[in-house]
Structures are given as structure tokens and as C-alpha cells.
């Protein structure tokens, strides 16, 4: 159990440049706290997220991966998040099919005005990952930090 007690999860948040990255900035501007485990990678649009990036993150030691994009209908590029939504739905379903914990992956739509939602989402997601413990089912042993 010591593993879980000292567990400091690594969480990668892919944020679209136009809504969610701005939403993340806003939660900073409003001084809303969320765990430092969450590290944000800026991508132009949620549709830029290649499933390979998600798997890469798990390989290199991430315990949770979350994608944040504009709300459906609000995509800066009009339709990007609709494609992202289908891709991630199918990817997550396949991961689930392969027995990977459902909670490790998530998609959340966060607008530029939803600083509070961003922080709340990250707090909640981190909590979920804390409960799940370290990623063991989709890890690369060569990357394990011991």
C-alpha cells in the first residue's frame, strides 16, 4: 500500500488553444487551485490529439490523460471537436475493452470562460486517478520510476 500512499500521479492534459487553454489560464488568473500533477500541453484543437499521443503519455509514465476542448458547436475550427469526440469515444471504448481502467482517460469540454470548471475538472480527475492508483495496465516497465 505504500505505493499508493506516496503516489504522485502524473497527469497530462491536452488543451485546445482557443477554449480550454484559455480556460486553464483563466483558472490561474482567478487563482483557482488544482494539483500540480496536472501538466498542460497546448494543441491547436482537440482534433489534433492523436490517439498515439494518449498512449505515448501512458507509456512514458502518465497515470491519467485528459483532453479538453471547446464545447461541441464552439470549435474555433467549426468541426474539430466533433471528430475528436468520435475518435476519443472509440479509443476509450477500446481501452476499456482491453481492460484498461475507464477512469484513466477523460474528455471534458471547457470554454475560455470556464476557469472554474477547468480547475474543478482537474481536481476531480486527479482524485479519480489517486483512487485508481499508478497506471500498471498500460505502462512500459522500462519507464517505471522506482
Amino acid at each position, binding site marked *: 500500500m505504500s505505493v499508493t500512499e506516496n503516489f504522485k500521479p502524473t497527469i497530462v492534459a491536452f488543451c485546445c488553444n482557443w477554449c480550454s487553454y484559455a480556460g486553464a489560464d483563466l483558472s490561474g488568473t482567478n487563482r483557482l487551485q488544482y494539483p500540480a500533477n496536472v501538466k498542460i500541453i497546448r494543441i491547436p484543437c482537440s482534433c489534433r490529439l492523436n490517439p498515439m499521443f494518449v498512449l505515448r503519455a501512458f507509456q*512514458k509514465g502518465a497515470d491519467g490523460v485528459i483532453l479538453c476542448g471547446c464545447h461541441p458547436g464552439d470549435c474555433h475550427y467549426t468541426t474539430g471537436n466533433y471528430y475528436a469526440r468520435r475518435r476519443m469515444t472509440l479509443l476509450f471504448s477500446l481501452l476499456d475493452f482491453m481492460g484498461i481502467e475507464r477512469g484513466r482517460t477523460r474528455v471534458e469540454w471547457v470554454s475560455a470562460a470556464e476557469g472554474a470548471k477547468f480547475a474543478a475538472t482537474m481536481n476531480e480527475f486527479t482524485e479519480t486517478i489517486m483512487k485508481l492508483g499508478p497506471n500498471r495496465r498500460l505502462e*512500459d516497465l*522500462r*519507464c517505471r*520510476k522506482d
Partner: protein
Amino acid sequence: MKRIAVENLQSLFAAVSAKKQLYIPADDSAGQAKFTLWSEGTVLTEKLNTVRSAKDLFFPQVENLVNFKVSSKKIEILENRDSSEPFVVFGVRACDCRSFDILDTVFLSDPVDTYYQSRRENGLVITLACNRPAETCFCGVFGIDASDPAGDVTCWMDKAYLYWRANTERGQELTKSLSVLEDCDESSVDAIREASKQILQKLPLNDLDLTDFRENKLLDVFNDSAWGELSESCLGCGTCTFVCPTCQCYDVQDFDNGREVRRFRCWDSCMYSDFTMMAHGTNRPTQKERFRQRFMHKLVYYPNNNNGVFGCVGCGRCLQKCPIHMNIVKVTKKLKEGMV
């Protein structure tokens, strides 16, 4: 010669396993045979042979070579050899046993591949004569007697007994330590061998004639017009290579986990488009050249360099597993047409 009743096989395995790690061919979850580390309950397969050859135990598909650590701006080199402990492999067929000779020629000649060497030194081979060869078997073509294989120890099996003959010093040493074995007469296996030979003679591929390839016809074979047709349907996958007991090509790759770099080698296949890729590209641009390379190597280059010994042992794995059923037998026969 020793023997043990078939129903007591598990106690033999237990006795060997008590001394060294023991690998035996056992069925995996898909019902295919695979060399498996023996533990209580591991049962010897009824299949003729394993899907992957016994090569895996001496030349694994992936093997660590060395690690680098990059800290600030310095590079540190760290030894990262997979430890090789003494082990015994039971149930190696005559074909696979012969493949070790071929691998030895490659890996143990100067410069010696110490990774392979340490495994060879640590590994004791117990062969098992074939009673029921498959239609795809053609080891006889290479002068291999499947009814009397080599190895540190040779075994035969019938319904009642497993017969055991130590061939080498190492084999004898192991035999001595195994009290479960009982003495028996050398002639006990004659009947088994005879029955086996009867079958071996009837195998459909026995007529494969390789004599023409022994002569130095390198360029003729290389330029044969049949290669295009033969390779046409090849998918360029690595199945034949990876199930082959004698293929020994590998690639060296690095894996960076962000804190240190692991350098490892892994099997490569000359059927792959990026095999021996160089800065200028590849010198085998189409599947025809890659396909030709594999068979030229086994049928021409290797025998030319090694006193006429072919780089194939006739195990028949590629015949069974090739997705499009192209194989060394078909290639040989087709090429022979051009040699007349």
C-alpha cells in the same frame, strides 16, 4: 541408456528443475506448443514441435546490450546484460538441435557474441526423437536423422517409457544426478527408431534435391528470372524469419525513457523494407530483392562460406506459417527448373 516411465515424467521434470531452470514444450492458451519454464503442472505438449524454435532460448527476440545515462551534460555507460543462469531445455527436435550449429558458426566465430555465448554455455540441450513427423518436415534433406537427434542428451519416447541417452560430458553429469532414471538396454529404442524411420521415408518432401546449390552457381541463381514471380505475392512480413530456427539477423535500437537510454538488440527480418536501412536508403528496394536475400542466404551464401552446409534445417515451420504459403521448398523447386 536410461529410462523412465511416461507416467513419471513429471517427477523427472521436477528433479531437473530442482537443479536448473527447465524449459519444456507445453501448450499455450491458443493450444500451440511453446518452450515454457517448467513449474509444477506444466505438461509436455503432444504437438510435434513448437511454433517458435528453440533458438529463442539462446538468441532471444529482444536482448539488452547496455544502458546510457545522460545526466546534465555527461553520458555514463551502465552494464545492463540480461543475467543468464544455467538452464536445461528439454524436447528439442533434431532440426532445432542442428540449428544451434548454424547459429554457433555465426555467433561464436570471431568476434564472439558474448551474449549468445553465455547462453550457449549455460544451456543444456535435451533432444527428443520424432515419432510422428509432419507432412511439412524435410530435415532428412539436410542429413538430419530425426530418429536419432544430437544434443547433450537424446531422448526417445513411446507409449510406456521415455528413454534417455547422455551424449556429452555435461549430459552425463546431469544424468548422474537424476536418481529417477533407471538403467536400460541400448537396444530398447531400436524399435522406436525403426518405426520412426519408416515414416520419415514416406515424407512427401524427401525428394527435395539441393545438390545443385552446392556448386558455385551464385550469380546464376542470383540472376534467375524466377525471383520476380516467386516474390510477387510475398507480403513482406517477418513470419518466416521469426519462426525460423536459423535466422540470426538483428537490429540494434535505443529506447529513451527520459532518464536513461537502453540499447537493445532485437530480431530483424530481411523481408522488411527497412532492413539494413542506410543513410542513402536501402540497397534492396523492392520485395523481390528482399525475398531473394533470404533464400540466397540460406541456399547459397551460407553454404558457400561454410563448406556446403545449408542455412536451413527443414523444420517446416515456414511452410506451415507463411500467410501466403510461399516457402523455401517452393523456391528451391522453382529455381531448379531454371538450372536444368
